C-alpha cells in the first residue's frame, strides 16, 4: 500500500498516468490475450481451422506447419539434424566465449576448430555425410553464420583500421579515415547491392564468387567500419604513457601495440563491441533484399504459400521473438560486463563515447 502510494500515486500527474495506463490495459490487454492465446489455433492439419477464427484468434499453426522450412530453409529434409547441430554448436561457442575465464589465446583455437566442424557439418561430403552446396543453406543457421563469420572477418580489419586512423603516416591515416567515413556514410543496403551486383563486374570474366560469400564480405566490410570506431574509442582510453613506457623498454611499434596497448584497449571496449555486434546480428536480416535465405527470408517465403497467406502478423511476431531472444541476451550480457567489477568501459566518458559511436543502422 505504501509502495503504491509512493510509486503510483505520488502526485496528481502520476495518478492520472497510472489511471490512464490502467484504462488502456483493461481495454487492450484482455483482447490481445484472447487473440494470442485464448482463440488461437496452435496446430492444425490445414489452414481451414485458422480461417475459421480469422481476425479473432492468432494462427500459430502456421509456424507449427512451416517450422522446418523457417529453421532450415531448403536444406535437404532428411539432413536437418546437421544445421540444427551446427546452430547449437555456434551458440555454444558464443556462450563459452562470454565467460571471462575463457579469455585466453587458446579460445581462438577452440573457435577455429568449432568453425571447421560447422563447415564439415554443413557442407558434408566426408564421413558419409552427403554433400550439400551452400545455395541450399538457409534459415536460422544462415543468420548465425552471417553474424559469426561477419564478426570474425570484420574484427581484425577493424583493429587495423583503428590503428591506421591514429597512425602518424598521412597516407595510411587518410586511407583509413576515407574507408571508415565512406562506409559509415552510406546505408548497408547500398554496400550489399555493391557486393551482389558490382563484385561480379569487378572480377575477371569466368571468375565467380558465390552469393553467400559476397553477402558475407559485404556484411564484414560494413561492420569493420563501425567496429573500428569502437576500437578507436578503446585505444583513446589507453593513456599515452603506456606506449611511451613500452617504447622506453625498447619495444617497436608492433610489439608495443600488440602486447601493451591493444590488450588494454580491447578489454575496455568489450561492452560497446558487444553492442555493435548486436547491430550486426540485426543487420544480417537485410540479406533478404539480395535474395539470401536467412531466418527472416524463410519466414517471408513461407507466407507466399497461397494456402497459408494472410498470417503475416503472426509470422513476423514470431520472427521478432526469435531475434529478440538473441539480441536481448547479448545486450543483457553487455550490461552485466559494464556493471561488473573489472568493467573497464564502465566510466561515464566511455559510455558517452560508446553512445556516440554505436549508431545502429
Amino acid at each position: 500500500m505504501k509502495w503504491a502510494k509512493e510509486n503510483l500515486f505520488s502526485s496528481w500527474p502520476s495518478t492520472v498516468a497510472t489511471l490512464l495506463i490502467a484504462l488502456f490495459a483493461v481495454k487492450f490487454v484482455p483482447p490481445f490475450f484472447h487473440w494470442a492465446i485464448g482463440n488461437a489455433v496452435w496446430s492444425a492439419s490445414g489452414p481451414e481451422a485458422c480461417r475459421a477464427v480469422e481476425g479473432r484468434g492468432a494462427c500459430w499453426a502456421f509456424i507449427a506447419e512451416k517450422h522446418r522450412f523457417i529453421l532450415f530453409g531448403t536444406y535437404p529434409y532428411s539432413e536437418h539434424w546437421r544445421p540444427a547441430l551446427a546452430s547449437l554448436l555456434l551458440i555454444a561457442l558464443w556462450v563459452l566465449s562470454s565467460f571471462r575465464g575463457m579469455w585466453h589465446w587458446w579460445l581462438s583455437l577452440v573457435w577455429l576448430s568449432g568453425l571447421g566442424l560447422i563447415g564439415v557439418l554443413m557442407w558434408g561430403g566426408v564421413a558419409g555425410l552427403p554433400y550439400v552446396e551452400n545455395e541450399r543453406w538457409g534459415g536460422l543457421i544462415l543468420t548465425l553464420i552471417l553474424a559469426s563469420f561477419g564478426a570474425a572477418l570484420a574484427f581484425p580489419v577493424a583493429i587495423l583500421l583503428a590503428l591506421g586512423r591514429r597512425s602518424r603516416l598521412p597516407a595510411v591515416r587518410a586511407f583509413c579515415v576515407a574507408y571508415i567515413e565512406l562506409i559509415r556514410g552510406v546505408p548497408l543496403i547500398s554496400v550489399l547491392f555493391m557486393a551482389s551486383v558490382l563484385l561480379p563486374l569487378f572480377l575477371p570474366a569466368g571468375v565467380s564468387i558465390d552469393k553467400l560469400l559476397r553477402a558475407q564480405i559485404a556484411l564484414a566490410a560494413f561492420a569493420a567500419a563501425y567496429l573500428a570506431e569502437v576500437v578507436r574509442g578503446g585505444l583513446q582510453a589507453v593513456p599515452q604513457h603506456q606506449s611511451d613506457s613500452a617504447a622506453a623498454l625498447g619495444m617497436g611499434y608492433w610489439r608495443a601495440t600488440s602486447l601493451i596497448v591493444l590488450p588494454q584497449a580491447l578489454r575496455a571496449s568489450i561492452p560497446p563491441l558487444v553492442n555493435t555486434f548486436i547491430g550486426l546480428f540485426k543487420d544480417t536480416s537485410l540479406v533478404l533484399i539480395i535474395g539470401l535465405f536467412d531466418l527472416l527470408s524463410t519466414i517471408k517465403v513461407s507466407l507466399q504459400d497461397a494456402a497459408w497467406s494472410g498470417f503475416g502478423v503472426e509470422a513476423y511476431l514470431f520472427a521478432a521473438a526469435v531475434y529478440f531472444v538473441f539480441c536481448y541476451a547479448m545486450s543483457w550480457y553487455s550490461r552485466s560486463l559494464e556493471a561488473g567489477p573489472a568493467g573497464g568501459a564502465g566510466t561515464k566518458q566511455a559510455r558517452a563515447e560508446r553512445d556516440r559511436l554505436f549508431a545502429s543502422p
Partner: protein
Amino acid sequence: MKKSWLYQAALLAAAGLALWYFASNAAQNLDARRIASGFGFLRREAGFEIGETSFFSYGAADTYLRALAVGLANTFRVAALGVVLATLLGTLVGLARLAPNWLLARLAGGYVEVLRNVPLLVQLFFWYALISESLPAPAEALNPMPGVYLSNRGLYFPLPGDFPELAGFNFTGGVGLTPEFAALLIGLVTYTAAFIAEIVRAGILSVPRGQVEAAYSVGLARRGAMRYVVLPLALRLVVPPLTSQYLNLTKNSSLAVAIGYPDLVSIANTTMNQTGQAIEGIALIMAVYLTISLSISLLMNWYNRRVALRGVAG
C-alpha cells in the same frame, strides 16, 4: 623515417593496383555485355510508373532522371516527417523512463528494450502486414475519431475544411498515407524513438544536481534554471548522438525497397534492373547519402565548436 615512407608508398601502390585491376575487369565485362558506361541513360525514358510522388509530377513517359528525383523527394519526405515524429516520441519515452511513476517508467523501459532488440526490417514487415492484413477494407474502415479512417488501403486524416470521403474503392480528400508509406513511417519513428529516448535520458541524467542547486542559489527561478543552466548542459551531450540518429533514420529509410515504398534506393534499383547501369546506379545512391552524411557532420562540427565549453576539459 625511411621505413614509414616505404609503408605508405606500398599502401598507395597496392590501392592503385587494385583500383586499376577492378576498373579494367569492369571495362572488359561491360564491353562483353554491351553496356555503355556513363550517365547518358538518365535522359532516356523510364517507362515505369511510380506508386506515389511528392513535390514532382511524374509519368511513365518521363526520364530516369526525373524518376530518381521523385525517389529522392520521397526519401526526404519520409525522413523529414520521421525525424520530427521520432524526436517527439523519443523525448516523451525518455522522460517517461525517468518519471517517478513506476508503471510509466517500466512501460517506457520495456518499449526501449523491445524496439531496440528487433531488426528494423522485421518491424517494417510487421507494420506492413498489420496494415494490409488486419485492417478492414475501405468500405468498413475503422473510424476511431471523426474524419480519421484506417483501412487496408491506407490511413486517412482530415485537414481543416477537407475531410476524407469514401469514393469508389478508396478515400479521397484529407491527408492520405499509403500502406507502404505508413508502415515505413511508423516503423522508422518507433524504432528510432527507442534510441532517442536513451539519448534524452542520458542527457538529463548527465546534468549534476549541484548545477541546478547552484542556479537556484544565484536566484534563478525554475524556468530560468532550465533555460540557462540545465538545457545548455544537457544539449551539449544530446545533440551529437541525436544527429547521428537522424542520419541513421535517413539511411534506414532505404529499407523502403523491401516493402515497396518508392524511395531513392527503390527507384535506383528498378533503374539498374532495367538499364543494367549498376555502377552508375550504386554510385548515385552512395553519392546522395554521402552528401547528406558529410554535410550533416560538417554542420555538427561547426555546432560543437560553437557550443564547446571554454576553458573546461572535455
